[in-house]
């Protein structure tokens, strides 16, 4: 089975797209088994909740932040399509994990991050910070960010199976670009394009991946981990050897050779 992890820049940080079904040789990265009716059936309710949160925190109810104009939609579509074409760049096929960064990142990726991603993210962050300071809004903004991170990210982030899907990154980051300025609107549109790409191409996967799937399945009495392992040899778990699930995650400091960790 081919395994692909691609990382690519956003305005603020890396946004990661991961697929177990993608092929590095394909021109447009996507999950081939995903159908729109599956999204509608299994994920539409969660997408609706995402929209409500994004709409509220992103202040899209205010008059100046309408989304139904061509420029906003063009930027969204540009961001969305950009994400799917990234597999053409082989040196981007890595994830932002301690293990990958320490053990497998090529030098091109480091140059790309240092020369493009971090500067763009920093400029955007500085522009937002200056605007918040001038509007005497810095404290409110920081509290808002802290609360949303505490509610939407903190409970899961320490789990080894956690993966910061790019749709989730777009959701979390984009909702805070909620100022009535050109750079803030552009940031929000770009991030929402990431969200749309993630949903349309990969589906709204849980950020805890197999850990979440196992939790739900066992709660419902549907299946067990053992059956999954026998069946599909699905490399969905965060720390997994080719034959068995490891008891503990690998130590990223020593780059173990026999373990697939992502």
């Amino acid at each position: 089975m081919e395994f692909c992890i691609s990382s690519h820049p956003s305005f603020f940080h890396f946004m990661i797209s991961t697929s177990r079904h993608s092929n590095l040789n394909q021109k447009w990265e996507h999950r081939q088994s995903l159908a729109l009716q599956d999204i509608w059936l299994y994920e539409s309710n969660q997408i609706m909740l995402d929209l409500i949160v994004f709409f509220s925190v992103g202040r899209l109810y205010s008059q100046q932040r309408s989304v139904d104009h061509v420029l906003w939609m063009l930027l969204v579509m540009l961001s969305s399509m950009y994400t799917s074409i990234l597999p053409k760049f082989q040196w981007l096929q890595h994830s932002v994990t301690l293990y990958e960064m320490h053990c497998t990142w090529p030098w091109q990726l480091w140059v790309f991050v240092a020369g493009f991603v971090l500067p763009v993210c920093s400029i955007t962050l500085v522009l937002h910070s200056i605007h918040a300071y001038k509007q005497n809004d810095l404290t409110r903004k920081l509290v808002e960010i802290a609360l949303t991170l505490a509610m939407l990210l903190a409970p899961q982030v320490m789990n080894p199976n956690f993966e910061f899907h790019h749709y989730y990154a777009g959701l979390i980051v984009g909702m805070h670009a909620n100022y009535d300025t050109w750079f803030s609107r552009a940031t929000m549109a770009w991030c929402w394009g990431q969200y749309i790409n993630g949903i349309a191409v990969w589906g709204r996967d849980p950020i805890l991946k197999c850990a979440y799937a196992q939790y739900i399945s066992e709660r419902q009495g549907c299946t067990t981990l053992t059956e999954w392992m026998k069946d599909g040899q699905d490399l969905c778990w965060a720390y997994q050897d080719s034959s068995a699930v490891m008891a503990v995650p690998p130590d990223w400091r020593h780059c173990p050779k026999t373990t697939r960790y992502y």
Partner: protein
Amino acid sequence: MASASSAEELSEPLLPQIEAAGNDSADNLERSTTPVPQLQGTEEAVVPDDGDRPSLEGVEEGRGQQQQQQQQQQQRRRWRGRVELGASNGAGEPTTTTTTIRPNTGPCWLVCELFYLTHYLLHRPIFSDPETSLRTQIRFLKFLVVTVLGIVTTHMMVVTLAR
């Protein structure tokens, strides 16, 4: 029962606050909850609904009785606008007929102000008017439509281009 002079003294400084209470905004709420001028003595000033009406000293002689009655009614409405801020509807007009005005004396005044503020906050519509509510819903629907179209378009384009 307060004397007529006490009622009149109370009415004049209140007028700007009372008029401000006609609108339903946070700004006006803040202005309308400023302390009420202190009455002379410890008596409560009660403005009755019917019957006893405070007389207006200082009204120029020569005015007709009808004009005087209109002024009295207008004054009563303004007082009600002050004391019934919490019960105002979306347009800021009073909807009930509570008429007691308490003097600006210590805990009593504080309790009353807290009561009015609490009542106002509990009953204030989330959206100031139906048009705002409808506009927000329409904005959300636009956002929903844009997102759904984006998902469908992206999915179809990527699947098509990947073939």
